[in-house]
């Protein structure tokens, strides 16, 4: 059965490729932030990741004799996946490390779990978590946004250089809310500017191409869980934590996908709660990227289980009996 042909009597412009293009446009604010803050290396990482992700998909589909030209189908998911992967990288990540992540995501996590449209994980997240496990020391430096715009050597060489003295004990409590909103705190290249992520969210909502339930549930319960875990630090700390932790990026771009999140309301809420708890605990006891990726993968794993027990053959049997 070829993709996109399940209901041939329904004619709508809101096809999978259309949704993915909308998703791509929604990523533009984060891409703008990445390039403005981290310069050439961010631009190259994003372009390289998008290209490589698409290239691997095309090659695999060609090998499987499902060429794009024959089916006239290309859903742009590989481009958006590559961009999302790049946006989760630190600015000093080398191209080789990025390539390993893309390769692992595209070939291992995507194809082994069914290929385009049927994989259960958010592919860029799985690839990102893998390279974090393989190359931890090459992904642990964060440049100051707005510095070294023309720096490119880190793309080619191991950037395991000594950090700036201003990275030592880098404390986000020193930053004002406006600075945190504007993305002045060093972070992954696309996750730092909450205000632009909100712009993306508004665009996705207005274009009706996103699921908002998991997003809202996740954000709310991250806030609640953070209040519990970081009770001693106070509410201002929690609010700052929300702005720098990447939780908004996760909520808007990684938990709103139609194929990897729950279809039902309650499923979405429960997935959001569990992912939020996983996120906060991982952030406290592990690292930020483990928190980001772990919470998404937990949500992915839960979604199809939740949908299976809530919808699917149970509901159909009820309807048939009636």
């Amino acid at each position, binding site marked *: 059965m070829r993709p996109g042909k399940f209901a041939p009597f329904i004619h709508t412009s809101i096809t999978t490729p259309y949704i993915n293009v909308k998703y791509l446009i929604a990523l*533009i604010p984060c891409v*703008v932030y990445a390039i403005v803050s981290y310069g050439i290396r961010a631009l190259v990482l994003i372009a390289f990741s998008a290209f490589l992700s698409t290239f691997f998909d095309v090659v695999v589909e060609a090998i499987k004799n499902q060429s794009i030209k024959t089916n006239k189908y290309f859903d742009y998911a590989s481009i958006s996946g590559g961009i999302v992967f790049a946006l989760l990288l630190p600015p000093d990540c080398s191209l080789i490390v990025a390539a390993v992540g893309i390769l692992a995501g595209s070939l291992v996590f995507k194809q082994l779990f069914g290929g385009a449209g049927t994989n259960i994980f958010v592919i860029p997240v799985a690839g990102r978590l893998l390279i974090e496990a393989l190359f931890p020391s090459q992904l642990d430096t964060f440049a100051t946004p707005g510095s070294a715009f023309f720096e490119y050597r880190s793309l080619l060489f191991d950037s395991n250089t000594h950090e700036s003295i*201003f990275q030592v004990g880098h404390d986000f409590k020193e930053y004002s809310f*406006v600075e945190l909103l504007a993305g002045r705190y060093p972070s992954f290249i696309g996750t730092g500017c909450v*205000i632009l992520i909100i712009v993306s969210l508004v665009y996705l909502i207005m274009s009706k191409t996103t699921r908002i339930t998991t997003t809202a549930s996740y954000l709310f319960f991250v806030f609640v869980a953070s209040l519990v875990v970081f009770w001693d630090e106070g509410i201002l700390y929690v609010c700052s934590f929300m702005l720098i932790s990447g939780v908004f990026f996760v909520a808007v771009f990684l938990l709103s996908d139609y194929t990897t999140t729950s279809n039902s309301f309650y499923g979405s809420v429960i997935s959001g709660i569990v992912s939020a708890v996983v996120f906060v605990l991982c952030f406290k006891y592990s690292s930020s990227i483990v928190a980001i990726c772990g919470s998404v993968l937990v949500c992915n794993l839960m979604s199809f289980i939740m949908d299976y027990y809530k919808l699917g053959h149970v509901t159909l049997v009820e309807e048939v009996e009636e």
Partner: protein
Amino acid sequence: MDRKIIRKLSIELVVITLISVFVLSFFYLISSDDSKERVQQNYSELFANVLEASYYEEIEIDNLDDYSGLLGVYEGFNEDGSPLGFITDVLVVTDNNEELHLLTGITYDGAELTGLSRIHDERNPVAISDQQIAVIASQAVGSQIPLYVNHPNETFDLDSSSPRIPGLHDGIFYAQVKEPDNNGYIDYVEIEVTNGSITRVQWDAFNIERNIKDRIDAAISGAYVISGENWATQSYNLCHALINCQDPARLAMKSDGTTSIVDGVTIEISTFVQLAYECINNSIYDFNEEEYKAGLASIISGIFNSDPETLGIYDDEGNIVFSFEDYPNAFAIYDEENNITGYTNVLGKVRGIVIDTENMNISSPQTTGTPNDSSVVDGAEDGVNIGDVDTSSDNIDGIPVAEIRTYIDGIEGDFVRSRYVVTAVNVSYRFLKDYLNWMA
């Protein structure tokens, strides 16, 4: 997707991009004051005990990699905007990959050290306490840079374990100054090397007026009088000290040209040190006294187009009594366009070796006797790498010995760790010297 949808999506793309740029610019603008205040607060916390200033700015350096170990440079300013000095962020990496991360403060015009501070973020820190760094800081702060650490004042036994300059050829080596001093004396040093060690040193001077005795004889007879010990005695003590320590650097010459570690020597020793280095260099290149004098004579002959005997430049002792005062370009090095690019010495002139006489660094030996160039500092990816702490070369941390301005005692009984701290200061000096085109 039809054309209408594609057009719509394209418009949305452009609009989203413009909105993003506008929103980001707006928020950057309104957060810039907060950001500047935060950065200055951070700077003050880190730099205040190294160089106190009203505000600081980071200096963008294109060729930072040329100064391995240098991580960043900041400039401190007064309230009125006048520059106060510089703070350098330096990472020293030792030969066993231990790290020492220091901030050094240096005045803007006086090349004085204003402060030393450690940043405790090393992956594999050198075992040196803050108290020990404070000891070094108390000795060095307020002094001119670059620095070096005195060796302990002890007698070296001239046995197989004596610290020797490697690569010396056996023989007698000689060097004399090009111009006489105020009293008409042309200083010379002669060293004898046996089995690779300096075994005899003589420092004396003959007068341009040939009827005046040599300085040692004049000192002994009372014709040449100086303060302190008799000049002949001081010369003897100094020569003996060089035989003991084998390296002029270990005489610990201070910025005023004197030394405090050789008993009884109160005279300026800069001429002696300079000539001793030249003799050692000649030994490395196996350019003995005979060749030196023949070379010097040929240079003089070249100026006048006449043979030495006719010119009468030799005295009864066989010394070449000649002043190059009126011939300043006799030892000049010219480029292809006949511009003077530097000056060499007799060895350089005779053998065509490029020798920077100011820095005494040998850059292209073309004859036998290639020197064993044991560099003190070997640059590495992430810091200045000390390698073997070797003081037997004629430069320290890439700085000519003659430029060293201050000798400190360092941490008692711990020359090596003291040396690490001093290296950080000297890296800063090298950078600022080039950046400001500045001689301390």
